[in-house]
């Protein structure tokens, strides 16, 4: 019964989104039923469809968890986008500097690396970089809130812009191969990459980019669950989220919990870099994120800030994101922007229904 009670409002929100979305499709002049079929059915029914969807879901699981952990402490982290940007750049930087990257500049070979570490050292180093740098960028607004009381919402918004401008500068001026028309860094060394899952599971088609980071995402769902509900730290973090004043009377320092929550939140967002940089693109590409940081807010809300809910909601949004491509191609008038509209309606409804869930 508890699960039913938790699921009822998200289901109402999703239903409302499809009804309103359907009306918009009708106004535009297409058939809502066939559009929604295109949106959803391609993600099921084939191994390729399912595994592609899981690939799309991976970054959303990380950002959804990131937003959920902060939410549980009463904080709204709108900065996951900036956190994953700096983490991705830093991971690529380590992969270049310690990965033996040699670049070809107008026919001349140039060694951009300091050393060439073996995979057994470099992979953990890159993993740690993604987590620590994301965590650091998240800790900044946490610290500012704890120390000066400045609102984390404003600071995380501002830090998004700062992060994106900063890594854009570093890429453009220092780590882009001269002559490359695309704003991206040199490739990371082979020893910094993580394998795709189809190397171990031959039934997954060769062109599916699903990689090890998906397993890490599942692991993080379990980790966040254990942390929040089975440890003293998690209990203290939630206590501050429920009622900071009562928590303080109980001997818990809200300031400390705010910094911890934002650091963990940032670290989770930073893990997006693992799948993207180490598992998929093998460099830092500016503009790689399809606004996953903001989608994470929708994922966390729809998933009721619970790891299991986040996982399900991430799959749901991944289905929509992937389905959008088919809608774009196979309907006459509807474009993939429909997905954003549905997402926005879901956010508004979940937010508006929040007061009935207490």
């Amino acid at each position, binding site marked *: 019964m508890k699960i039913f009670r938790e699921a009822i409002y998200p289901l109402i929100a999703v239903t409302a989104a499809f009804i309103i979305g359907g009306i918009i499709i009708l106004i535009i002049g297409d058939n809502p039923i066939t559009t929604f079929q295109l949106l959803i059915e391609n993600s099921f029914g084939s191994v390729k469809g399912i595994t592609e969807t899981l690939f799309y879901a991976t970054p959303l699981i990380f950002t959804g968890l990131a937003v959920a952990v902060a939410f549980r402490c009463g904080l709204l982290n709108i900065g996951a986008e900036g956190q994953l940007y700096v983490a991705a750049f830093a991971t690529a930087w380590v992969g270049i500097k310690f990965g033996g990257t040699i670049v070809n500049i107008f026919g001349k070979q140039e060694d951009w690396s300091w050393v060439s570490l073996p995979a057994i050292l470099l992979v953990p180093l890159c993993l740690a970089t993604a987590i620590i740098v994301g965590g650091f960028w998240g800790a900044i607004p946490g610290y*500012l809130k704890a120390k000066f009381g400045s609102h984390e919402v404003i600071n995380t918004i501002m*830090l998004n812009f700062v992060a994106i401008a900063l890594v854009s500068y570093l890429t453009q001026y220092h780590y882009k191969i001269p002559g490359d028309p695309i704003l991206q860094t040199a490739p990371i060394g082979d020893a910094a990459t993580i394998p795709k899952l189809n190397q171990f599971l031959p039934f997954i088609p060769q062109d599916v980019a699903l990689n090890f980071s998906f397993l890490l995402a599942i692991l993080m769902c379990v980790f966040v669950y254990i942390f929040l509900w089975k440890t003293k730290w998690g209990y203290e973090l939630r206590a501050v989220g429920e009622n900071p004043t009562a928590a303080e009377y109980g001997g818990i320092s809200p300031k400390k919990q705010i910094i911890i929550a934002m650091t963990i939140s940032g670290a989770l967002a930073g893990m997006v870099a693992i799948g993207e940089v180490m598992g998929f693109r093998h460099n830092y590409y500016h503009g790689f994120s399809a606004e996953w940081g903001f989608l994470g807010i929708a994922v966390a809300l729809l998933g009721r800030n619970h790891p299991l809910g986040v996982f399900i909601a991430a799959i749901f949004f991944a289905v929509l994101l992937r389905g959008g491509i088919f809608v774009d191609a196979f309907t006459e008038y509807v474009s993939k922007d429909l997905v*954003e509209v549905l997402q926005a309606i879901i*956010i508004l409804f979940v937010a508006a229904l929040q007061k009935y869930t207490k």
Partner: protein
Amino acid sequence: MSETFDLAIIGIFIFSAIRLATPMIFAALGGMFSERSGVINIALEGLMLAGAFTAAVVTYELSNPYFGFLCGILAGGVLAFIFAITVIKFEADQVVAGVGINILMLGVPALLSSAIYDSAGSTEQIAKEFLLPDVFGLNVASILAFLLVPTAWYVLYKTPFGLRIRAVGENPEAADAAGIKVLRMRYTGVILSGVLAAAGGAYLSIGQSSFFTRGMSAGKGFIALAALILAKWRPIQVLIACLFFGFTEALAIQIQGSSWAKIGGEEIPVQFIEMLPYVLTIIVLAGFIGLSKAPKALGIPYKKEN
């Protein structure tokens, strides 16, 4: 020779800064009415886009920029009303709902424009004679924005309406006890913010530019929010902050592809200038440049106790 050259550059600069500041002045003044009434407005970006898109479509279809402008601000008002219902009637988290409105306004205009004009996310180009015209070298919308500043100041500080707006943002219980309709004032504040932010957006599409593109406000709504915080929610200071940000943006544009913006022979990367408004806001919020005091009831839904 070099002196006249410098003067010319300064002149171009000032005009360019005013042009770039115009949409932010509208949006920030709008945000001021919403936040002074106690409602956090992260949705300025989306409200601007609503104005920009509607104004571009109507102006293109009917070849009348004034009617386009009017429809644009009307669309902003309607969208703000939806935002107001979610946060005031349903007491939704104001930040979350604001994020929702912003995402909605990335999707809706793109969806409609690709259905109407069959081009991914942008509308048709409007002929130059049907854009908002320039008067004395300044766009009429810029002039309107400047006139709006003293008007907003007068309304906020010298009228009963302004007093009520401020009262419900500072102490809604006391305001209620004094017979002020708290919720109605907040609806008004939020709708006003939609109308003004949309005016800024309309200027973007039918004044500065001649069509709408997806996400064309490009963070201006957030810079307006930053300006509002820097200005400590006061109209005259809002103007100064917006002009300052307009100036930095003009500088950033000038630097791209020019060689004169150098310090000690080193080129200043444009990204550092782009960062400036955001870094400044973080510093001000931390209280390093005087304490930035928000309206006391900002972000707290009002529940009438019976």
